[in-house]
Each structure stands twice: as C-alpha cells, then as structure tokens.
C-alpha cells in the first residue's frame, strides 16, 4: 500500500548569484513497511529530499503526498503536528538535549503529546531496552558513546509511534560495530512494528542491508533498485 508519493519534486535554492537545483524532478513512491536507502555523494540532494518528505522544507515545484494528503495543503502549525504524529527523525549528529538523561530525551516527544506519566515511562523503558540501552536510562548524552547516543535518538524517533522514520546519515559518525548494532535494531523495528524506514546514506554497510536502494546524483534519481 502506497503511503508516500513524490511527484516531480523540485527544490531550487536561490543564493545571491546562482540558482542551485538541489532536487530536480524526483518522482518516487514508498510502500508501508519499506526499509529504503537514498544514496549518493555529498551535495546530491539526499538531505533536501528527506527534509521535504518530513515537512521541514517545502518543494519549489511538485507534490509530496502522504497518506493521500498533499503536504502543501498544511499550514505551518499543522505541519508541526503532522511531524509529531507521523514522523520520527534520526539526525547525523544525534541532536539529543544535553541536559536531559537518555530516558528524558526519549520521553520528551511523549510529553509534548501529553501522554499519561505511567504510559510514558513504560514506553520509554520498552524503547530503551529495544535499542539495548535499558541500563543507561539515567545517563546523560555526554556519558554515552556516539553509537549509544544514536540508539537513544532512534528510540526517541520511535517514541510517538510514527509511521515513518527518516534518518539522515545515521551511521556517519559511528564505528563499524555501532553501525552494525544500529542497523540490526532498525531492521528489527521495521520488521516487528512495520514502520517505514527511509534513510539517506553513503555508507556501503547500510546500503548492503537496505531492501531498496535509490541512487540520486545532482538532484535526479539515477536508479531505484529493490532487493528480494
């Protein structure tokens, strides 16, 4: 079942002298439960594409349709609400709140959604255990390794039970062991909870594990390969 459609999406940045065509006529669809990697060299438009899918950025031209609703129809406040309910973000540099513990970071979005305290705490522990950090719930990000921080970020992204996880180069700052662990966790969650994972990457280890690989360069889709 199609849950996300990109139709002839363009994104043009107007800098002072030149126009940069970051995304140039991309049309792709995603089904529910996909585990897809968008690959390409730096500056190929991967992050811009993810930002537009997540409603952080608006396309200059074209349509992004999520569950049959065009994102362009949303006002800014509706987009924030849409992101909170439907999308979990995992960033390259983790972006955890340094003064909060791992558990508090995971709980944060549930707080925004006003979940009851008990449910919040149960869900937080369940997620931290799922990413193998049940024993580090009270640690601050500064006391965790890069791989552990990124796992907390994945747990945070999953907290509000989103339909999609958008991960922008999630393994860029991780060593191979941490990368392996993180991919395994993401694969398990994808399988068990049927969450759609779309990540941008140029890490061969991640590309190898993805079930669909979309290659883009200069803002255009070069290939879209599905593995069995």
């Amino acid at each position, binding site marked *: 079942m199609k849950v996300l459609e990109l139709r002839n999406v363009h994104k043009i940045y107007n800098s002072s002298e030149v126009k940069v065509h970051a995304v140039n006529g991309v049309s792709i669809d995603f089904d529910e439960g996909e585990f897809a990697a968008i690959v390409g060299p730096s500056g190929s438009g991967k992050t811009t594409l993810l930002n537009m899918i997540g409603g952080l*950025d608006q396309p200059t031209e074209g349509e992004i349709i999520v569950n049959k609703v065009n994102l362009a129809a949303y006002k*800014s*406040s509706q987009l924030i609400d849409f*992101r*909170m309910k439907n999308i979990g973000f995992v960033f390259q540099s983790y972006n955890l709140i340094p003064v909060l513990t791992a558990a508090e970071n995971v709980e944060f*979005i549930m707080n925004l959604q006003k979940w009851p305290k008990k449910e919040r705490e149960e869900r937080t522990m369940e997620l931290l255990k799922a990413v193998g950090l049940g024993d580090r719930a009270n640690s601050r990000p500064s006391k965790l390794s890069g791989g552990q921080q990124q796992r907390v970020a994945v747990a945070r992204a999953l907290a509000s039970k989103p339909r999609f996880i958008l991960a922008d180069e999630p393994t860029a700052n991780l060593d191979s062991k941490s990368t392996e662990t993180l991919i395994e966790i993401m694969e398990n969650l994808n399988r068990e909870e049927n969450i759609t994972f779309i990540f941008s990457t140029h890490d061969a280890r991640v590309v190898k594990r993805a079930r669909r690989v979309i290659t883009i360069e200069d803002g255009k889709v070069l290939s879209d390969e599905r593995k069995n």
Partner: protein
Amino acid sequence: MWRNRTRSLVVITSITIGIFAGVFAVGLMNGTIEQRVDAALNQEMAHIQVNREQFRENFEINLTINNADSVSKLILRNEDVTGVAQRLLVNAIANTASKSVGIQLNGIDPEAEKKILSLDKTLIPGTGSYFEDPGRHNLAYIGQDLAKDLNIIRFSLDEAAIDSLASGGIPPETLSKLDILVNKQFPGEKAFSKEVQAALSRTEVKKYGADIMKRAWHFRDRSKITMTFLDKNLMQTGAMFRIAGIYDVNNSVFEKSQVFILRTDLERLTGIDANSCHQILVKVNDRDEALPLAKKLRTEMPGLQVESWKEISPDLAMMVLMVQKFNGVFLLIILAALSFGIVNTMLMVVLERTKELGMLTAIGMNKRRVFSMIMAESVFLSLVGGVAGMVISRLFIISVASKGISISSVSEGFEAMGFSSHIYPSISGTFFITVTILIIITGILSAIYPAIKALKLDPADALRTE
C-alpha cells in the same frame, strides 16, 4: 537554564548588583530628603500654620489672632488634627558683649509644643534643658550656630578632651601635634579650626577634624543674651535672657535665626494679651492630609491665612516631588540596563541553541512552546537576579538604617542647606513591590524579541547549522 552556568550566573549577578546599586542609591536619596522633610515638619514648621492675613508679609506685631483659644478649638474639631500650639512671634536683636545678631523670637508654650514638635529632643546634652526650670523667667532656647555667632560657645582642648580623643582611636602621634593647643581658649569655631588645620596634616584633619571640633566644644555656662524688640505700642523694649539650652537641628539658617522663649515672658514684655497669638501650628496624622485640610480650614476661618507646609515651603514640596522624579529616572535606568542585559543574553541563548531549537521544532514542538521556553528562561533570570538584588538591598538598607551613614567631611555644606550629615537610608515597601513587579514585566518584555527570533528559525536551516 544551567547549560551555561557561568553565563547564567554572570547575568544573575550583574542584575543583582545593578538593582542593589540602584535601590541603595534611591534609598540614600530618599533617606536624605525624608530626614530633611521630617526635620522641617517636626522641628521647624509643623504641617499647617495659621496666621492673621498679611502677618507673614509684614510681620506686624499687632496682626494677632484674637480669641486664639476658640480658633484652636475649631481646628481641633477636625479628626485628622493631632495637636495645635500657639506662638507669639517678633523680630528682635540678640546681643552679647561681643556681637549683635538679628533673630526671630518665638514665644512658645513648651508643653503644647512638645505634643506637636520635637524641638525639645534636639537639645545638646550638657547645655541645659528645654524650659525645665519651674518658675524661672526670661529663659532662651537657642540654636548651636547662633551660640557660635554670639561667642557663647568656646573652643578649648583640655586634658579630659585629649584623653577622650585618645580613647576614641586618634593615634598618639596626631594628638602630640595638638599639644600646643591644650588649655588655650578660642572665642570661635573659625579661630580654633584654623589652628587645628595648621597643626595637623590635611589627611589628619579630614580623618579626625570632626571629632576634635566636637570634643573642643564648650558651652559657656550662665551665658546671657540681651534681646531688644518692639512692644505692641511699637516702643522699644527688651530684657536679659539666660540660656535655657542649646539645640542642634542640622540646619544652620534655622539655628542662627530662631530663638525660643516662654510665651508668658513675651506677653509680659510686649503687652499682647493672653488670648492672642500670631501663629497657630497644626499637626495632622499624615503629612499628605495637610493640603486638603488647609483648604478646608480656609473656608471655615475667613480672615485668617491658613497654609500647609507645601505652601509655606514650596522648595521642600518641590524637593519631595523632585526626589520622586529622580527615583523614577533611576528606576528607568536600572530597568533599561536590565532589559539590554536580558535581550543580549537571550539572543546568545537562541544563537547557541539554533540546532537544538531546529530539532525541537522538527520533532513536533509547536511555536507556542518554543516561545514559552525562551520567555520562561528570561523571566527566571530576571526574577532570580531581581529578587536577589531587592533582598540584598533591603537587608543592607535595614542594617545601615539603624546606624546611618556619616558624611562628616561635607557636614558643613550639608547642614548649611538644612540637611543632616548623618544619613539613614530608607525605602518604602511600596517602592519594593513596584520595583519587583517592574523587574518581572521588564524580564517578560525583554524576552519577546529573542523569543520571536527563535520562532522565526527555519527548522531545516537550523538543523544545518554547526
């Protein structure tokens, strides 16, 4: 909030110090003016004065208030009035063997005056009493500066004075320089102070001069003054008066010009009858009630001039008003500095946390929450700093208020203007509450601009920042 502890603490500390400095300066200014107003109203003029019309302009001896007792009773019927006192007033010349000075003689009833003024409490110890010699006539209660002018006060350093200065902490090497002055008599303050200045260094004079002058001060006992003035028939009259006591009100002009004698003596000498007076002083509960009450009394007592202290001494009223305006300006400066500090800090916070704010917006924190987060931090900083500043200033003012702050090095100039050289800082409770509320409001208003900046962040751009 405590992510950057040093910065938060620096901001809180600077707010605290700024507020403390401002509030203390206001307290000092308030204290100075309040003391002056208090002295003027409680020692010099009372709240309202009632005279016959034209009396104040002409000072004509026969412009008396007849039936003074009935007028006093009429005034006392008003519930705001706490007391009245009748006075006879004549211009006179005070003479001693060496000097003559023009003065105003106040014929008073000491018991009635004690109920509304505190002139009796300004008596310099050791100089006599406030008319407490029963049955004695022709006693005069005079100011310290008039006593100096009339050479009633002499200056000399005897052994006892030197001992007392030594126990007061003046070093022996300084005291040894004063040996040449010991047991010498000086007729006036100027001559003595000239010799002290010649004997000591400038620093020593600055440090110990006031103490030395105080110890060398001697009242010539049994001093007498002859006062001459006109009686009710405009014939010259007069009498010899013995000094009852010497008062010190820290106001040179008043001390030099106002001499108090018993009303009965002045009645006898001028021939003015006992039920007449020149002036009725009125004291009320609250000094701000004086003006409306004076207006009311004017309508009730035609033919009499009724004036509140603000009308009698517009300079005093203006001073009170001016100090209120100055307080306002001071407050404005404090709040402006506070506001700039908060805006600057919060802009730094927004700049520093651009990426985090981008992340928070990305994961679904709405604009209202982002706005409230910045606002809460700013209000916290200004509230903690502001309240700490207010509490410290309050405690400091309370601790200083009991002993006061002495500025004896400028006492001469201060007292010439009627101000005490010993200041007791004071701040009203209302001022404290107003400032605290204004600090909170300033904290809130100052955070609006940085909070709007935070709202305008584009999450995608913010996430890209390093």
